Structure formats: structure tokens, C-alpha cells
């Protein structure tokens, strides 16, 4: 296909398709885009020198992107599946740990009883990170005390280091690892929350 108006038509069509399929899961969206792109390529490969009218004809026969997406989901236009339960689950997973830990547990229960995530996504939401942001806070208080020798210190650099650093004179390595862990504990729950928002699938009608 020649570059120019014809190619622009195809580009715009694929862009509309991406917009229309926003309510689908990422996998479905990518698969659909690849299928449609392949269809257009195959259809135009049959025409020796496809004109703008040829392209228009191929796209018209494909149908409106919104129509293609709606067919799979009935007459209802696809939309994000973030109901009240899903939103509450994400909020509680993130900051519920500050509510004496009970909030986190409620978050996990809401997460697992929700319909908008797959089991794998729920596992990610549960494991990253139990207690949410509160875990980072509690752990930083624990490590920041300096005098204490939390069991975690052993894991950072092995028993060898941990024994000598137990009284508070932590090594540089321990310090670096502690900061890295803290950053992870801070970022992972946020990343996990974003992941759950992105992966929430359209709610059943």
C-alpha cells in the first residue's frame, strides 16, 4: 500500500479500534488489533495497487470499530468494570493496613469475592504487598530504631553480617538493602493498585 491518504485511513481506523476496545482486557485488545490489521493487509494484498477507495471499501466491510467490539459483548458498549466493591478493595489493600490491620484483611476479602479480576490478578493483589503501605511504615519504624536486630536483617546479607551488625552498627550493605527494601515496600503496593485498576474487566450486565 502506498503511503498517503490510504495509509492514514488505516491508521485512523486502528486508532478508533484501540479506543473502542478500551473496555476489553489487554490480551483481548492486542489480539483484536492484530487480527484486524492482518485482515486489512490480506484484503489489500489481493488488489494490485490499492487506491483510497479500495481501502475505504475494506474498512467499510469490516464495520465500525465500536460495532465490532459491541458484538462480542452484546448490545451494551464495553466499559471499565470498576464498581464500588472493586474501588473499595483497592483502597483497603493500599491503606487498610493503617486501620489496625483489619482494613487489609477486608481488602483481601473484597478482592477475592470480586468478579472483575482473574485468579492470577488476585494473587498479585494479595501478595504485593500484604498490609499495603502500612507495611513499609511499620518496617521503617522497626529498622529505623537502629538498636534492634529484626529477623529481617539476617535475610539482607546473610548470617555473617547480621551477627556483627546486630547491635545497631549496621554495615553499608545492610543500609543499602534496607533502603532498597523500603523503596520496594513503598512502590509495590502502588504498582499493585495500578495493575488492578488497569486489569479490571468489564462488568457483566
Amino acid at each position, binding site marked *: 500500500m502506498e503511503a498517503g491518504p490510504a495509509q492514514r485511513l488505516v491508521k485512523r481506523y486502528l486508532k478508533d479500534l484501540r479506543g473502542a476496545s478500551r473496555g476489553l482486557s489487554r490480551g*483481548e485488545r492486542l489480539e483484536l488489533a492484530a487480527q484486524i490489521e492482518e*485482515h486489512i*493487509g*490480506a484484503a489489500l494484498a489481493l488488489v494490485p495497487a490499492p487506491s483510497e477507495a479500495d481501502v475505504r471499501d475494506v474498512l467499510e*466491510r469490516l*464495520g465500525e470499530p465500536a460495532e465490532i467490539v459491541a*458484538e462480542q459483548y452484546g448490545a451494551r458498549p464495553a466499559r471499565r468494570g470498576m464498581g464500588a466493591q472493586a474501588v473499595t478493595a483497592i483502597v483497603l489493600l493500599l491503606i487498610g493496613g493503617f486501620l489496625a490491620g483489619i482494613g487489609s484483611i477486608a481488602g483481601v476479602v473484597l478482592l477475592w469475592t470480586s468478579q472483575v479480576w482473574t485468579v492470577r490478578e488476585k494473587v498479585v493483589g494479595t501478595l504485593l504487598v500484604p498490609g499495603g503501605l502500612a507495611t513499609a511504615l511499620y518496617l521503617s519504624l522497626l529498622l529505623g530504631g537502629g538498636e534492634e536486630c529484626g529477623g529481617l536483617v539476617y535475610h539482607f546479607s546473610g548470617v555473617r553480617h547480621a551477627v556483627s551488625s546486630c547491635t545497631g552498627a549496621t554495615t553499608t550493605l545492610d543500609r543499602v538493602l534496607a533502603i532498597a527494601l523500603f523503596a520496594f515496600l513503598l512502590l509495590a503496593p502502588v504498582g499493585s493498585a495500578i495493575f488492578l485498576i488497569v486489569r479490571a474487566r468489564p462488568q457483566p450486565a
Partner: protein
Amino acid sequence: MERHEPMLSQLRRGVLEYCVLAALREGERYGYELVAQLGAADGLLTSEGTIYPLLGRLRKDGAVATTWRESTSGPPRRYYSLTAAGHDTLERFTGEWTRFRDAVDGILETGEGRWKRDLRSAS
């Protein structure tokens, strides 16, 4: 005769996926081929693109498998083929469809269905 699109669309929604399976019974097809094949059947496809979400779902359900093949023109194409589960589904549908079609035909012909005729001839 002009087609009644809302009516047709309802019917199509129920049977299109089985028609896709049937179209793959003879062997694997790539998307455009499949669309051309189904498009040749009157009233079965309005927008060709609607086949693709359907193929995606059938693949996810395990009725259809995809493989990539080199093509003489352009990038590799994904070919769709029927799995064993797909064959089973198609066979089951074919049986159900035959009974269903006969039942509907019966109602349409007499307005009351065959059961009443059977009832009358029984008494």
C-alpha cells in the same frame, strides 16, 4: 426481499460461532479467508470485523487453535483450526440445530406445532 436487520441480528448472534466452527471443519483458514467464506452465505455476516472477537473467544474457550504461517505476500498470518473440543461442540450443535429447526418449522407451518397434530391423531 429486503432483510429485517434487527431480527437477523438476533438470530445471527445465536448461531454465528457454530458457523465459524463449521467453516473450519474442512481445514484451517486464515482470518480473511474465513470471512470471505462466511460472507458468501446470505445474511450471516454484516460487518466482517465481528468475526474476530468471536475467534478470540473460541480460541480462549479451546474450540479453535491458532498457528502462524508464512505468507507469500506480507507478514506471517495466523491460521485458525478446529480442536477436538471444537469438533465435539460442532457435532453437538448440529444435532441440536436439526431438532430445533424442525421444531420451529413445525410451529411456522401449522401455527400450533406438531404436538397438537400428534395429540389429535392419538385420540
